[in-house]
């Protein structure tokens, strides 16, 4: 709901098509391409007429904008629809900066935060400075960089449960880096990374919280 609040606050009308479910990435990443296609077709059908599709996740946005085309290589009609939707897919921070063209959404939050770069947002969509620019305008928030901001948190979808020890080890490396900043809050653009990071923080009993960028920007 935080994303809706922020978008409305900066003057956009938001719709939430209730038919929507998932983009299909879990199936694609686990090797189930047919199942991924089934779910992707549902997504494309639900959103076919949307003007802008704002996604609160770099990973889902990358799936839709980059992998749909690959999935539908031999299905020209769906491929055409996927291509038509590509330019309308916007990850939340990119939408604010490049379409809505706002940096200051009037947010206030008295915390010391560190920003975690989500892999797909960073490497597939080139999201690096954007969220930091938005956070820099949040009153009361001080931002400290991690030494391993770009290192994966270890979530990786089904990887997290297929290889729990490796995934957990990666999460602990991440929270070590978070702790060295002295921040009491980790901000990210993907709920899945934050789930992994918060899950590991909670298990370690550390008094550090996590918030999605939209939640931070919704605070006032």
């Amino acid at each position: 709901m935080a994303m809706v609040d922020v978008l409305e606050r900066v003057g956009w009308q938001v719709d939430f098509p209730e038919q929507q479910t998932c983009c299909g990435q879990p199936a694609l990443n686990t090797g189930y391409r047919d199942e991924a296609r089934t779910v992707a077709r549902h997504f494309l059908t639900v959103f076919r007429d949307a003007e802008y599709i704002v996604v609160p996740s770099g990973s889902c946005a990358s799936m839709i904008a980059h992998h749909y085309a690959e999935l539908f290589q031999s299905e020209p009609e769906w491929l055409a629809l996927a291509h038509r939707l590509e330019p309308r897919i916007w990850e939340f921070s990119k939408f604010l900066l490049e379409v809505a063209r706002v940096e200051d959404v009037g947010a206030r939050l008295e915390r010391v935060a560190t920003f975690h770069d989500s892999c797909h947002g960073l490497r597939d969509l080139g999201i690096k400075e954007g969220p930091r620019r938005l956070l820099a305008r949040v009153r009361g928030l001080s931002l400290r960089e991690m030494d391993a901001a770009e290192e994966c948190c270890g979530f990786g979808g089904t990887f997290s449960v297929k290889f729990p020890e490796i995934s957990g080890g990666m999460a602990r490396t991440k929270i070590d880096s978070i702790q060295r900043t002295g921040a009491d809050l980790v901000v990210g653009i993907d709920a899945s990374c934050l789930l992994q990071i918060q899950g590991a923080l909670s298990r370690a009993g550390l008094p550090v919280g996590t918030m999605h960028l939209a939640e931070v920007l919704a605070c006032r």
Partner: protein
Amino acid sequence: MTGPQQEKIRQTLDDANLQLAIYSATGRLMSHRQAVVAPEVLPDYQELRTQAHLVKQHAIENLDHYLEQFESQVVARGGKVIYARDGGEVVEFLLDLAKKMGARLMVKSKSMTTEEIDLNERLERHGVEPVETDLGEYIVQLARERPYHIVAPALHKTRYDVADLFSQKLGVERETEIEKQTKIARSVLRQKFLAADIGISGANFLVADSGAVVVVTNEGNGRMTTTLPRVHVAVAGIEKVIPRAQDLAVFLKLLGRSATGQPLTVYTSFLAGPRREGEIDGPEEFYVVLLDNGRTRLLADREKRQSLYCIRCGACLNHCPVYRKVGGHSYPWVYGGPIGAIITPQYLGVTHDPWLPFASSLCGACEEVCPVKIEIPKLLLALRSEVIKVKAREGQSRLERLGFRAWAWAMRRPRIYEMLGFMGSALLGGGEGWIRRVPKLLNHGPLAAWLSQRDLPRLPARSFRQLWRARRKAGEN
């Protein structure tokens, strides 16, 4: 995943000293690389990567042509080219050669290709002594281990480990100072260089237009291996061929930088043919063994043949958060890290280690640093889908397949999707806070795997859909 790999992964994760060794060594290599590819230092780095990718692509797409050209150039310079289908044929050739020369000792400079075919063990079995002369390789050879890393074979060994190893195997006094350890190795290896009849090297590049084998090293051992013994044999995969000597301008810039953060490796040797009249060094005979060992099978796959572009710099290993956790000996074959995860299933077959392509969070750090821009995550996804297809054919992983089918069915039905949320909330308890454990009845499969490492949030008391409907209703009033 089962068997020795799982055990090795556990051991590595639990060994705090080893974790530290891997982290600091790979971390150093990462920061050294970063320092020499930064835009202020190398503004055309991205263009170089693109160019390297395109040259490799062109070479691989026209491999037959360039291999023939390479061969005719080698022959014109008095050398010989041998095509080997597999490791057995390489061994056969070397044993024949050794027999002809009465050779018992071969010195080797670092070569992953010969590791791939277990050359050392196979030569030993036939009474020939192979001696590795790269310090790291020498250490792992003495320890009778596989290289831990493509570029840094003994990355996992501390100087104390090396001290123990040297005193055990070489009968010298225990020495923990690295410089002195190097001196010990050097004095042993000098004798081997002088006594060996055959020197075996790998090749970083095979240059088609000049018939040159290019070998880069940092220790100078490559030069001695290829020039001191009477015969030099280079063993190289067929994918190592590049069209022109001038292409090296691109590759040499990228290789040292990506591997160790050096603008240029210390020694770059261009070896073309045996010693000619009037030359003061070089071998009397010069052979290049071109190894297939499954490479033509990779070549047949249009999408995945880009795996053959790899120049073995090891950057993807250093930057891989999974490699950095599990280390080099947890992988099923000699090639570890992301590149290992994509080529092992292709060389050995996807059923050999079906878990391997799944052991990645798909973070993409590997592709980002790959100097020849191999799309590693994309290839991992392709391999995953191949594994799933084979498993479906063989009736394995039934439960998972059923699960994904049911999931896909539910994801097309928003009402059911919503109900699943309520059910999850009812089962695990909705509201605030985090779940550390669940009743035994529920503690299975993915949920148990998740909770073995991390807590799980409770589902919010009201779903987004409920909040959305309430908000719209409030707006209407």
